[in-house]
């Protein structure tokens, strides 16, 4: 299906145990991600989207099935994976530059070259003058960009984004999604994004995976093909004629009932 597979999720299932019983969060989930692709996973809230990301990252072990990254089975956390959260989780006692270095420090890769790359990323994405500022002095959108650069600084092959914009207000969210979508494309990163925002999923990704309600199985996979006169970015994507069509199909598949 694609030239170079990076991630292969094979029949993963996940059960959670509490003293009151057992819940199946994921059931027999399988999909693949190709190099350079941005994939979104959407699904009803509480269906186990974030659990899937945690399993891919190696933070938690699935009850059954396995995840292959570059044909290697995932056992524990992987140094080639960058993870981005809903909140930026910047450390308020470190300035922006030191926050960006944290991943490198943990992986003992902090040296002249990696420092230079991190600073270059900050320069490129408009944060050069804030290097010595503390996180409390930055706006929410800027902080989220710093969080992305912190993730990119370790030069990950694969990025996992767990609802990365949902803590931002709507306008900021559109702008930051556009920013980060463009950065990911420019840096030629492969990414899997979990979101509950259908429009965001379509606008940012090459493919959208729709999950069913819990226990989550893959309901459908949409390859997003948009006809655009200009270059595709998350913002321009929203103007494509097919956008509405994808939106309606996915909305119906999600089968949301408020009762």
């Amino acid at each position, binding site marked *: 299906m694609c030239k170079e597979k990076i991630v292969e999720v094979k029949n993963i299932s996940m059960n959670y145990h509490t003293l009151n019983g057992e819940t199946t969060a994921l059931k027999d989930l399988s999909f693949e991600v190709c190099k350079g692709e941005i994939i979104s996973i959407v699904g009803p809230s509480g269906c186990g989207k974030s659990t899937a990301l945690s399993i891919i*990252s190696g*933070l938690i072990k699935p009850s059954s099935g396995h995840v292959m990254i570059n044909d290697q089975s995932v056992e*524990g*956390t*992987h*140094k080639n*994976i*960058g*993870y981005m*959260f809903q*909140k930026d*989780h910047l*450390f*308020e*006692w*470190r*300035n922006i530059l030191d926050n960006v270095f*944290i*991943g490198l*420090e*943990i*992986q003992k890769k902090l040296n002249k070259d990696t420092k230079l790359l991190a600073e270059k990323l900050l320069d490129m994405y408009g944060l050069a003058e804030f290097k*010595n*500022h*503390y*996180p*409390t*002095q930055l706006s929410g959108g800027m902080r989220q960009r710093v969080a992305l650069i912190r993730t990119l600084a*370790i030069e990950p092959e694969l990025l*996992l984004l767990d609802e990365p914009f949902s803590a931002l207000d709507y306008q900021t969210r559109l702008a930051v999604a556009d920013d980060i979508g463009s950065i990911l494309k420019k840096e030629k990163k492969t990414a899997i994004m979990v979101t509950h925002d259908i429009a965001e999923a379509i606008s940012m990704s090459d493919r959208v995976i729709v999950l069913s309600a819990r226990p989550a199985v893959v309901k459908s996979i949409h390859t997003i093909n948009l006809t655009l006169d200009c270059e595709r970015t998350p913002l321009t994507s929203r103007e494509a004629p097919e956008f509405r069509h994808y939106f309606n199909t996915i909305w119906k598949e999600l089968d949301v009932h408020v009762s």
Partner: protein
Amino acid sequence: MSHKNTITNTSFSKEHINFIKNHKKRKKEIRITQISLLVVFFALWEIAAKANLIDTFLTSSPSQMWYLFIKLAKDGSIFNHIAISSFETVVGFITGTLLGTLIAILLWWSDFISKVLDPYMVVLNALPKTALAPIIILWAGAGITGIIVTAMTVSLVVTILGVYGGFKEVDEDKIKMLKTFGATKLQILDKVIIPASIPTIINALKINVGLSWVGVIVGEFLVSQAGIGYLIVYGGQVFKLDLVMTSVLILAVLAALMYQGVAYLEKKLIKYK
């Protein structure tokens, strides 16, 4: 904060200048009232003593206390007492805080140990530590060591519980963020748990200044030949109330100074606020 706005008069409206003025005025009023309260209190005390409204044998008077202080300062003995008590207190609250933090780290490291020790911590926390002072002094020696250990014990359990509580409050997702980079438990402790808990540890230090003084005074009541606590107990025994009162005042000043010292340390250490 790394940068501060420099205030220039030219760039503000009249309204804003008025706002600043009122703010300063209010601050001044509060400070003046605070000082007046103290002055009035001592003045009334002195007047009441001079007019024989109160029995100075039981209450002493500010002037008697002042003369006594000058006398003790001239022969230098008071500074010796101050130095001894201060030394005991500082060593007490620093070791109490350090040891408490170390034990808190141990509890954080092993959830099992923390769960096992939980009921013992609750009991030890509820127990008035001063009740242990006679035992500690018998074990650690009837001298400065015994007093320091007493001071440390008074603050130890509170520190353990407070700092451990601070550790547990660190956002799980921040820890998860480090784990995604492949952080080990030691790295999590070093990079997030400890730095995030510095404010909690400083708070413990602030509380421990007061608690440590309790330990030192109780210890000195029991055994010592020198120190502020010794002066208080000695003054009480020989009915020299001016000595007792002077010592208590000195104690109040010392405790306040130490608290300010910790507050200064806090300001130096936590730059990002």
